[in-house]
């Protein structure tokens, strides 16, 4: 079909002249972030967002959900339906599984939204022309997805190889107390059960030792899928330095023994990354693959390195494959250049070449409550970081846990359970706290009391310099363990700093520091265990935590917003492929700096929003 000429010829000729003079007007990319200063009722604020972001709401929904996450999750239906019979119902056929999963979960979560946020979502729907059902999914899918993913990791973990035992051949005859139990070369000293831990628990090993790993799987471990990586080499059975044998009471398990050519380096911290898959081939969903275990990491030190078990951080090394995950930190007083508090956060989770094109900084002025700005995405009423006009700043990270509503459903209804989330979505809860609280002390009860959709870790800072790290779960056992508070300088039972480098800093990652038993539950033959035993994020987060600690320790006393921005952009710390936004809050100055719209977010400039300025203005 042909249209009328878009411009009349004289116009074209004039345009031609202009273009020739102006370099021919190449199109420019649109900005990938938006700023909105919102006033009015919750509905009006939602409607304004909907009108402004209509196109971007549709494109993030289509590109992130319709053509990415939804079809991707549909592939999980067979394994889910095998365990949860509800999902064998034909209504989940024909690719409707994931859509219904999100929709049913969203509808349940709707009841947990406070009225003003329900109104805002209705406004978003009316303003954008999108169905409320889709707007609701857009505002809840991350919470549902987190819990769903934890369940699928758990299911996968049940049937994949596990590292059960580690043996150091010479540790029982080296004249050293390698395991720190106060005895030297006692029987069995060289053998230890594998335990994920942020600290190195075996030290001063003779460099010429062999390290044997016993890997167990009901279907048998496939030696061809075993790989052991050190900081400078990678080994497969058959390679010089790595041999395979058997272990286990019946010899049913696979033992791999590593002794690198020339031995391990002396006086060194050594870290190993172990990958393993079983002999079963899973055809559905494609592509065909083995049951691969999550990659586990553990370290030890060789003779001469010094230090005792539990004192050496499990730093591991950059494996060249994985990304560190979201992180943040808060500092104050002696840690900062001017004594004023700072909170910095680099959020990463799910970009898929889409989310970064749909970022938004929204400054909400609630009809009742405190004005607050959140860094989020177009069409999303929430954000995972924000600050209010009183100078309270909060950042949230998912902290993977099976202590979540989906597990509760499973525990209650067993094989007839539905994977329906409940609780207040984390980003909405963050806004509730910002809207209602002026300080960390006021915010904590709000965050603690609210029902949670998942395991979430919260970092809070206020204008007075109060800093707190809060670890929460859904507390499905109702044993009161769903909330743990960490403050700067807090230590564990062994006297190690939990999340600080000093007395004026805290750091946020995606593993629990205090809540080490977030869920331990056995039923129906399943063993639901704490985060560190199944989370694919765990070891990466531990590494990130230590690296960030070192970075902060090096800069204590010299930290300001610019330094914080540098740390957020540090290549060893930031997620290069699923980075979503980066913010630095200056609570005392009511000023925030944000970078978003590219991946990683910190590859672009930071912009500044002064919450105290009227009208608020974003400046470079």
């Amino acid at each position, binding site marked *: *079909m*042909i*249209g*009328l*000429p*878009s411009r009349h*010829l004289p116009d*074209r*000729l004039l345009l*031609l002249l202009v*273009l020739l003079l102006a370099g*021919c*007007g*190449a*199109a420019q*990319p*649109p900005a*990938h972030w938006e700023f909105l200063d919102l006033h009015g009722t919750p509905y009006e604020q939602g409607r304004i967002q909907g009108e402004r972001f*209509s*196109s*971007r709401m*549709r*494109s993030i*929904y*289509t*590109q*992130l959900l*319709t*053509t*990415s996450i939804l*079809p*991707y999750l*549909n*592939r999980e239906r067979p394994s889910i339906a095998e365990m949860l019979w509800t999902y064998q119902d034909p209504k989940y056929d024909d690719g409707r599984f994931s859509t219904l999963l999100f929709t049913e979960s969203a509808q349940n979560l709707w009841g947990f939204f406070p009225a003003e946020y329900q109104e805002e979502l209705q406004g978003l729907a009316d303003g954008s022309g999108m169905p409320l059902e889709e707007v609701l999914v857009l505002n809840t899918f991350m919470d549902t997805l987190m819990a769903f*993913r934890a369940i699928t990791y758990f299911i*996968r973990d049940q049937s994949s190889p596990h590292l059960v035992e580690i043996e150091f051949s010479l540790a029982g005859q080296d004249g050293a107390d390698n395991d720190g139990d106060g005895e030297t070369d006692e029987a069995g000293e060289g053998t230890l059960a594998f335990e994920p831990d942020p600290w190195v628990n075996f030290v001063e090993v003779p460099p010429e030792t062999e390290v044997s790993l016993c890997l167990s799987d009901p279907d048998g471990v496939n030696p061809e*899928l075993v790989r052991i990586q050190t900081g400078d080499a990678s080994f497969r059975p058959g390679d010089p330095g790595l041999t395979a044998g058997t272990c286990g009471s019946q010899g049913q398990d696979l033992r791999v023994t590593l002794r690198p050519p020339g031995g391990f380096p002396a006086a060194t911290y050594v870290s190993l990354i172990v*990958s393993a898959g079983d002999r079963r081939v899973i055809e*559905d*969903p*494609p*592509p*065909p*693959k*083995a049951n*691969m275990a*999550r*990659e586990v990491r553990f370290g030890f030190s060789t003779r001469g390195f010094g230090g005792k078990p539990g004192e050496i951080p499990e730093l591991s090394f950059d494996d*060249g*494959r*994985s*990304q560190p995950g979201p992180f943040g930190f808060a500092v104050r007083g002696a840690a900062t250049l001017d004594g004023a508090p700072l909170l910095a956060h680099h959020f990463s*989770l*799910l*970009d*898929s*070449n889409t989310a970064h*094109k749909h970022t938004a900084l929204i400054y909400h002025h609630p009809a009742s409550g405190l004005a607050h700005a959140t860094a989020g995405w177009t069409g999303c009423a929430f954000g995972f970081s924000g600050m209010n006009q009183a100078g309270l700043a909060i950042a949230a990270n998912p902290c993977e846990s099976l202590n979540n509503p989906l597990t509760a459903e499973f525990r209650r209804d067993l094989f007839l359970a539905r994977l329906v989330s409940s609780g207040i979505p984390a980003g909405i809860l963050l806004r509730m706290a910002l809207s209602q609280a002026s300080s960390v002390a006021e915010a904590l009860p709000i965050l603690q009391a609210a029902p949670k959709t998942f395991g979430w870790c919260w970092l809070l800072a206020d204008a007075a310099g109060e800093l707190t790290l809060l670890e929460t779960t859904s507390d499905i056992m109702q044993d009161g363990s769903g909330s743990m508070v960490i403050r700067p300088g807090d230590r564990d039972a062994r006297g190690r700093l939990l999340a600080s480098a000093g007395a004026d800093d805290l750091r946020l990652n995606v593993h629990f520091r205090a809540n080490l038993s977030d869920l331990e539950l056995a039923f129906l033959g399943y063993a639901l265990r704490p985060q560190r035993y199944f989370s694919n994020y765990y070891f990466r987060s531990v590494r990130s935590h230590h690296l960030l600690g070192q970075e902060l320790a090096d800069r204590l006393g010299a930290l300001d917003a610019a330094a914080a921005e540098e740390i957020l952009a540090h290549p060893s710390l930031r997620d290069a*492929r*699923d980075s979503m936004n980066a913010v630095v809050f200056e609570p005392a100055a009511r000023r925030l700096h944000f970078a978003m719209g590219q991946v990683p977010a910190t590859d672009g400039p930071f912009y500044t929003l002064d919450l105290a300025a009227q009208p608020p203005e974003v400046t470079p």
Partner: protein
Amino acid sequence: MSGPARLLVAATLAGLLLAPRAARAGRPSETLPKNTFLLDAAYVHSFLNHAYGNDGEHTQLIDKLYRYEPGGGLQGIIIPDARVTYQLLVLKLQYGLTDDLSLGVGVPVVLATTVEPRLSWVPGDYMWWLGRSYTEQDFWDWAASMGQPRPGTWSGNRGALSDLVLGARWRFSDRIPALSGTELRLAFATYGVLPTGRQKDPEEIVATGTTTWDLHFQGELGFHLGADWTVPGADRRLTVGLDTFYEILFRHRYTTPRGTIHPLILTLAPYVGDSYTLDPGDFLGFTLSFEAILARGPVGANWLTERVDDPESLPPLLVFSLGYSFTWLFQSDWQSQSAIWDWSQEKLWRPGYKNRLTAEIVLSLLRYGWPLQVVVGYSNLSWIPGKNCRATDTLSVGLRAPAKFF
């Protein structure tokens, strides 16, 4: 043969006798003698397998597709090294309304189009749960499980009409006394197309249509100002031509794909809108041409030469011409409900230029009594790099027959 048929043949042959000059229609100022027709039929074979990017780099016709696993990083990069082949039959009929004004109509018919996507794969991030990075087979297995087929070779457009072209050329130098008797000729030409071409099926990822925009050879409304000058001496064997042009491609409306065939790649309508418009941007440029008479050929006695007042005015036996065209390409303008998507398209069609080399050889048989010319042409866009353009090369073989009926 029936009586009317014999009359038609006789009239045609008689007409051919009176239209010798018409066969030389390659110069910017060339027009047909009054009441003369020139029928031109050419088979054009066009092949295309790369483009030039924004930095003038050699690049693929279709942008690389980066595929991500939700939260798992980059699966890999699909690199479509597409190869497109067009086969066309181009029929042209020109008519001399006066000695200095000719009209013409062109009927391009696409005989067939083939698009081979020739997909290759660059593995992405390591996937711990897979125990490896996605191989190409892994990826397409994965994609198939989500309803996304691997695009295969596409063939279509069989016998499909492209846009009809109507044009006129006026050699206005004939009206300028100062140029009378000189070897310099000036002409103005214009043309426009009728939208008879076919748009591609929006749901097909590697298909192509038959519109002027798809062929990207010329605009939909063009204005040419040309001059040619025959070099004195040298037996008037050499002519130099210069043609400047401005060609317009109009804004059109297109249907947005809904992902019915390619749900992961082409589900665009929910945010782009049910349709979008595209103004491809105009063309501005010039063509420099050199025409050489390689052999005039003998003017022997035959039924044709005997009927021509000046047999030496019949076209030379063998003419060879070379041309170079520089075309500036203006920025495309895509307008939909999604500025992000608009940019994703516009960045592929930013301002640029193309450098075309052409060569043509014309074997004219009129001096031997055959009212026919054989034309072989070659056009090349791939030898001299351009910018933001497709590097199409074409080979054409055609016949021209001049005729005069009254």
